[in-house]
């Protein structure tokens, strides 16, 4: 019988206060191994504090946190030894070449100088930056610096990769390259904890997402599942000669516009509104080939979750 792998990250009622501020407030998370996990939220949602908790840099005020089989914060060092991180700042030293910085990072993971040098060359080569290894960060573009930071995170072949808004400031091509590299890693079994406030990116990229705001979890699930929770504001209908037939009807229970002779877009109020419209058209003998709710994006779901999260007492 196959034994289910334990979660890479599991936290229960995780809480971290800074004085009166509740940066992380009763967060429950379960991240299975080998997935790209999106941790989404606006600025100040508690993403960076959560990362500090995951790395054992801060102890939780309350709750339980277990990462890669180690309870935190006691097992912080063991977790950091198996974790690669790309934080908000690339972390390259101004006075050192990228090679020296990466060799230092490899040494910090216990590699000897020769092994570290070989590993740096190999990983940076995979990132396509082998010819820039002897440059200092000031001589690298933002995208190159970010890729160097990713290379550093991969030096110790981590089981967990924590990426804190890694595509911030990258152009579209560099961001796509970085996402592809991360996807390859996840395919190889690495768990990726990916924070971002770019919802479209998370929608395309993550296997599982959690939406947080003011330190609280507002929703968790696969992006497709969360999308389906978004309210339906419009529906696209297709049918033979549909626009002309609707024009002849009285009392269509929705405002509508013709997109093409056979395609109509109607404004509705939620799923119930779609059902009422379809029922009314069926009763009038209007045939439909296709009914497709519009606007169910992760962004719409996010905004709906946020709207439902009324401000609590001042914290």
């Amino acid at each position, binding site marked *: 019988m196959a034994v289910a792998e334990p979660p890479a990250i599991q936290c229960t009622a995780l809480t971290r206060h800074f004085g009166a501020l509740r940066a992380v407030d009763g967060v429950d998370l379960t991240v299975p191994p080998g997935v790209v996990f999106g941790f989404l939220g606006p600025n100040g949602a508690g993403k960076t504090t959560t990362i500090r908790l995951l790395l054992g*840099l801060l102890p939780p005020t309350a709750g339980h946190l277990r990462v890669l089989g180690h309870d935190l914060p006691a097992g912080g060092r063991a977790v950091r030894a198996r974790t690669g991180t790309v934080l908000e700042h690339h*972390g390259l*030293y101004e*006075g*050192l070449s990228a090679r*020296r910085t990466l060799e230092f990072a490899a040494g910090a*993971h*216990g590699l000897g100088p020769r092994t570290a040098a070989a590993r740096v060359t190999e990983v940076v080569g995979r990132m396509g930056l082998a010819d820039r290894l002897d440059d200092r960060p000031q001589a690298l573009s933002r995208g190159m610096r970010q890729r160097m930071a990713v290379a550093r995170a991969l030096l110790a072949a981590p089981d967990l990769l924590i990426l804190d808004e890694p595509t911030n400031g990258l152009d579209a091509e560099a961001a796509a390259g970085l996402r592809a590299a991360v996807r390859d890693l996840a395919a190889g079994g690495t768990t990726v904890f990916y924070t971002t406030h770019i919802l479209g990116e998370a929608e395309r990229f993550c296997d599982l997402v959690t939406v947080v705001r003011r330190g609280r979890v507002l929703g968790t699930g696969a992006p497709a599942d969360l999308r389906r929770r978004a309210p339906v504001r419009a529906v696209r209908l297709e049918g033979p000669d549909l626009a002309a037939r609707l024009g002849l009807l009285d009392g269509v229970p929705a405002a509508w516009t013709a997109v093409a002779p056979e395609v109509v877009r109607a404004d509705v109020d939620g799923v119930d509104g779609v059902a009422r419209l379809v029922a009314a058209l069926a009763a009038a003998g209007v045939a439909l080939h296709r009914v497709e709710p519009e606007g169910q994006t992760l962004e719409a779901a996010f905004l709906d979750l946020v709207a439902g999260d009324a401000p609590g007492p001042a914290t």
Partner: protein
Amino acid sequence: MTASDAAAPDAAAPDAAAPDATAPAGTDRPAPDRPVPAWRLVAGKELGDLLGRIGRRPVTRTLAVVGVFGLLIPLRFSGTANLPAFFAAFTAFLPARLVAIDAYAGERERGTLEALLASPLSDRAIAVGKVAAATAYGVARGWLFLAVWLASAGLLRATGLAPRAPLPTPAVLVAVVVAAVVVAFGAALFGVYQSAQAPSVRAIVESGGLLRLVVILVVFFVVPWVLGLLSPDGTAPALPVPGGGGVSADALVDALAVRPAAVAAAAAGAALAGLGWLWWLARATLRRTGREALALVGTDPDGARRSRRRRAGGPRS
């Protein structure tokens, strides 16, 4: 491959001293690729980053300081041959302090501290490495001053350009070589202690400026003056006493010389007090450089204070 796998080749590297039955006779076997001790790794990174950022400025500054304080002033005021020795200690103090106050606060400002804390290096290895780097840099600057001064003065004397160019006695030279290490270590330790909890280097520089000035004045000017090392004729001055008059510092030393036990006890007491202070400072620095304490800087002062109190006797990660 996991991180532990990645490190495994090092851990499993054969001992160089052990015989290798599989190696043909006469084959050169490469030395095992042992990891560098963590504190040395950090110290190397600190020095490399520092030198990469500041370039050759330390050497040119040392030459300028030697020229003014090592040669010109002693030449102008005869009898101050040992004066440059105190500047050697001074040049160990300042660079060590400047590097030390940058250790955490500078990294925090440049954004690299979080990445360092996210590494598996222990809190202690990071702190020790930073203190070691600042000490080494201070000592190197102090000794560089001595070396350039001795070489310049020797050259001036040998060529007859300045036959009275100041050279120290061997005893003073040895004392300063040792003093540079002690001064640099103390400055490094105190600088790292301050740096750990400061939001920026500027905040440290602007705090306690007057106190620092007084300490520097006493250590580097008043003490040498009392000992007669700053007076033109090399004799200690009379110390003013309340109610008028004065007592010669030389007379004081002579008086103490007839009571060697008291002098030895005073010296031992001073040494113990100094060691005690360093011990307290080292422990306080290690507490301040714990990851939790570092991560809290700039977030919530009340929380940081509570955390420091709690960690005073608690375990370290």
